[in-house]
């Protein structure tokens, strides 16, 4: 017993140690320790974010340096606080509290004292900097906008949020990332790839050299330049015209599907969301719940399209063979649904397709619409056929553009109405409003522009897109170079386009002709209602216009939607006409027209429903 005592104790100790070490090193060990290892710090080397150019190679977005004043609290020597504060443009209380925050964070590590000094402040400060030990200036890169336009299209970059941190291992807290627009859509192209250095730290968090001699380190890969399809000048001009108006404008090049302009009113200067004032400006824009400047109306607003939609009903009727261009309907200054007369502004009389379009006759299209449904034994079948044609124009669903946001619009189908009215309890006459683009139809300005492009191409469209070229290779997603064919045969387009061209010759837009350019277009005037304090109120009609030009070799297709702009040829027609002239001729000859658009605003219309007073709608302005 006494001889074995010590030996047994040694063996027992040995097993105890082995047990404990197995627990620590085998059971508790996890292979991704390196991620939480306090001894290894990753330092990132950020490449420059890629520039953004317009379709002609004009710079739209670049980078600018910004200067952060940094402090290492432990190294700070007594200083002339007053002078320093004056140079930094802050008061003493701010300075003291920021110093305390920095000291609390770490006396040994740098903290930001004043972020993003302007170039001017930096110049002043730089020569005095040597008097202030413990402070230094750190350069960083911010976005620079070479335009005051296209804020919503370009988007902005801002710090990654927690959700992204959790779901995307690439990002580290505090990094910048594109959050809207092109910055978001092409984030990976623009940002490049940051370089990583692994630094071995000691327990005071000081660097003590590279980890594993830098074998795990990587070099930064610069971001790609991208060229987008916007025409900078057209975009800027369009935004000027939209001054004081709410709505959306989209211009597309029909033969490529490239988006030439995407304007939302009201808009803002993209530079507002860069620099020291960013968060203040962002709150202002974001919380403006009435004008909603950050809500891109060109792709998110989904008004009823109104009369431009008649052109599609005409095409469908031709394709279905239920009318010919010569088929006529009589307009009784309106048309009868049962015993009710629904009004029409065309002037009445007998209409064929040509005059039905250019005079925008409701009665004609109600007749056409009925004929489409009459062809089929049941309303359901008629609805299916009609819906299929409509959707082939990119309506009633997402278009699949390379914009990070969008709206589907709406083409109602039979299930929709079955739910609404009950199964089998509706017919073509019930939904007759669809014939003139009102009712349950909804489309974004982008969808309208795309539909117009499909008409301009006589039967197909390219998915609208904003990207033209990425980096040196230039390759973009092949789905943007494949045509999407509509269900309408090419031959049926000519009579409809003729009608649209006559809109400018004899019709609703005859005052908007551009000398030397043949345009085909269609006005729209859309009734709209709001609910204020639970009361349904009608507001001044939305002004809608779609057109393309030149008729024989279309270069541009445009959809303009102006909230409460009254009839289509007013605001929307004017703006569309000026944009076409600008794009095709490069200059404006009709300066009176231009002046009117630049000066007129609709602020008074927008104020009406909020005034609390009774108001009149659809008043004549000129």
């Amino acid at each position: 017993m006494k001889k074995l005592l010590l030996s047994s104790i040694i063996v027992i100790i040995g097993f105890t140690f082995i047990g404990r070490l197995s627990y620590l090193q085998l059971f508790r060990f996890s292979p991704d320790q390196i991620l939480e290892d306090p001894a290894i710090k990753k330092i990132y080397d950020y490449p420059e974010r890629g520039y953004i150019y317009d379709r002609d190679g004009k710079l739209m977005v670049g980078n600018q340096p910004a200067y952060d004043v940094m402090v290492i609290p432990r190294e700070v020597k007594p200083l002339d606080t007053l002078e320093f504060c004056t140079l930094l443009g802050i008061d003493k209380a701010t300075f003291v509290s920021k110093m305390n925050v920095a000291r609390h964070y770490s006396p040994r590590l740098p903290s930001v004292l004043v972020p993003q000094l302007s170039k001017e402040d930096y110049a002043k400060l730089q020569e005095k900097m040597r008097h202030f030990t413990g402070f230094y200036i750190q350069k960083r890169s911010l976005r620079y906008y070479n335009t005051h336009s296209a804020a919503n299209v370009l988007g902005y970059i801002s710090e990654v949020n927690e959700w992204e941190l959790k779901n995307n291992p690439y990002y580290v807290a505090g990094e910048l990332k594109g959050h809207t627009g092109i910055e978001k859509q092409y984030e990976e192209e623009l940002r490049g790839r940051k370089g990583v250095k692994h630094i071995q730290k000691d327990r005071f968090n000081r660097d003590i050299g590279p980890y594993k001699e830098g074998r795990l380190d990587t070099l930064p890969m610069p971001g790609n330049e991208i060229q987008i399809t916007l025409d900078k000048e057209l975009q800027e001009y369009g935004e000027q015209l939209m001054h004081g108006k709410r709505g959306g404008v989209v211009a597309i090049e029909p033969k490529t599907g490239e988006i030439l302009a995407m304007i939302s009113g009201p808009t803002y200067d993209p530079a507002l969301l860069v620099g020291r004032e960013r968060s203040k400006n962002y709150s202002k824009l974001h919380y403006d719940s009435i004008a909603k400047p950050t809500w891109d109306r060109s792709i998110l607003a989904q008004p009823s399209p109104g009369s431009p939609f008649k052109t599609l009903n005409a095409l469908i009727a031709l394709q279905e063979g239920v009318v010919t261009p010569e088929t006529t309907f009589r307009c009784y200054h309106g048309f009868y649904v049962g015993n009710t007369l629904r009004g029409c502004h065309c002037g009445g009389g007998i209409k064929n397709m040509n005059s039905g379009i250019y005079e925008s006759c409701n009665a004609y299209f109600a007749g056409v619409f009925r004929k489409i449904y009459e062809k089929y034994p049941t309303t359901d079948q008629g609805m299916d056929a009609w819906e299929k044609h409509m959707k082939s124009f990119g309506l009633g669903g997402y278009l699949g553009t390379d914009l990070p946001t969008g709206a589907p619009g709406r083409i109602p189908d039979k299930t929709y109405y079955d739910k609404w009215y009950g199964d089998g309890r509706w017919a073509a006459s019930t939904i007759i409003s669809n014939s003139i683009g009102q009712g349950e139809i909804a489309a974004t300005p982008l969808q309208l522009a795309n539909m117009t492009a499909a008409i301009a191409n006589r039967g197909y469209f390219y998915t609208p897109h904003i990207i033209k070229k990425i980096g040196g290779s230039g390759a973009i997603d092949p789905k943007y170079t494949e045509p999407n064919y509509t269900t309408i045969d090419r031959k049926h387009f000519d009579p409809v386009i003729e009608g649209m061209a006559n809109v400018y010759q004899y019709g609703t837009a005859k005052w908007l002709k551009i000398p030397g350019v043949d345009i085909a277009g269609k006005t729209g005037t859309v009734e709209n209602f709001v609910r204020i304090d639970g009361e349904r109120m009608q507001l001044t009609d939305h002004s809608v216009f779609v057109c393309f030009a030149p008729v024989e070799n279309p270069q541009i297709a445009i959809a303009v939607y102006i909230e409460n702009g009254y009839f289509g040829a007013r605001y929307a027609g004017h703006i569309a006409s000026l944009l076409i002239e600008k794009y095709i001729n490069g200059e404006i000859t009709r300066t009176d027209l231009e002046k009117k658009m630049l000066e007129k605003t609709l602020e008074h219309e927008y104020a009406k429903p909020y005034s609390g007073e009774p108001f009149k709608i659809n008043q004549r302005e000129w």
Partner: protein
Amino acid sequence: MSGKGPFGRIDWISVILYLLLVFIGWINIYSTSLTDSDGSIFDFSTLYGKQLFFFGIAVLGIILVLFVESNFFERFSSIFYMVSIALLLGLFVFGKTIAGATSWYNLGFFNLQPSELAKVATALALAKFLSDIQTDIRTRKHQMYALVIILLPALLILPQPDPGSSLIYFSLFFVLFREGFPIYYLGILLVMVALFATTLMFGTVWVSIGLVILALLIYTFKKASVKIPILPVVGAIIVSILFSLSVNLVFEHVFEQRHRDRFALWLSLEKDEKKLEEIRKTIGYNTYQSEKAIESGGFFGKGFLEGTRTKGDFVPEQHTDYIFSSVGEEWGFLGTMTVILLFSIFFLRLIHLAERQKSDFSRMYGYGVISILVFHYFINIGMVIGLLPTIGVPLPFFSYGGSGLIFFSMLLFIFLKLDSNRLKDGI
């Protein structure tokens, strides 16, 4: 083996195990103290350079030991002991204070720690006393003498303060147990430790209830033929309860807060998560970092010189008391197992050597050596891997430190010298 010369009959297995342990220890000191600017391993301004130098001195000391007549140690053991006691006393006047403990003499090139020397001397003196033909350990008087020999240096070291080293002297009780000191004393000691820990964890009331239930269980399930008298059992329970009560008194009034915190951490007494975090950051910081470092090594370790926490100096005192955490981080489970196995084999080999001695003195000294080494090993690694509270003792042959390495080597090689001469015993 020819039996001629100083190395003739030395136990080469022990020597090789010793060299392996010193080598592995040095490798880890190298890793913990290497900085990027360092060049040669013989650079004596670095810790690993110095340790190499100390090893050189240790080798000289070993050679000296091997050339000395083996009965020299037995004959002069009383004098060694008295010199050590004098040196320990002298510390109160001439001692040099390092890190709050007055444990060193400044010899210019070298700080001498007499408590290390005293371990050798006490082991020798105890062996000398016990092997005396007139000593009978079964008598109270001689038990008292033996206790005085052991406890005198411990008492002198305690106020330095160096409770760790002081505690080490208690290991010499194992020599007494080997020589006939009743083993149930060890049992009583273990019961006291158990009572101490359980009282802190559950309180006197629950401990008392537990003891009574235990006694009842024993009476219920014992064989009918076995008679256990009631009175001593009741007496034992009462004494235990009194002890349990005194534990609370001692813990609250004799211990300082830092000691209480160590126990709080060790026995998971503190339930308040915030306070626990605070303790972890202060008193438990070393243990926490050391456990983390060992844990992060996994099965294979991060590789030599690749231990990030070792390089970053995250474990304080890593080159001295916490050297084993570097083994854990850089060499992983394989490394720690190797070291544990080497130590175990080494100790068992030494016990084997001790048991084969013909001379009582040699055997008793051998047991002294083994007890001291095992105690260091147990307390040190137990602390580093978080099984024991923080008690500052070095890991023999591993930890950085001149006095430690040199005197551990002397301690061992005096025994190996005695062993090599065992056939000539009885002169």
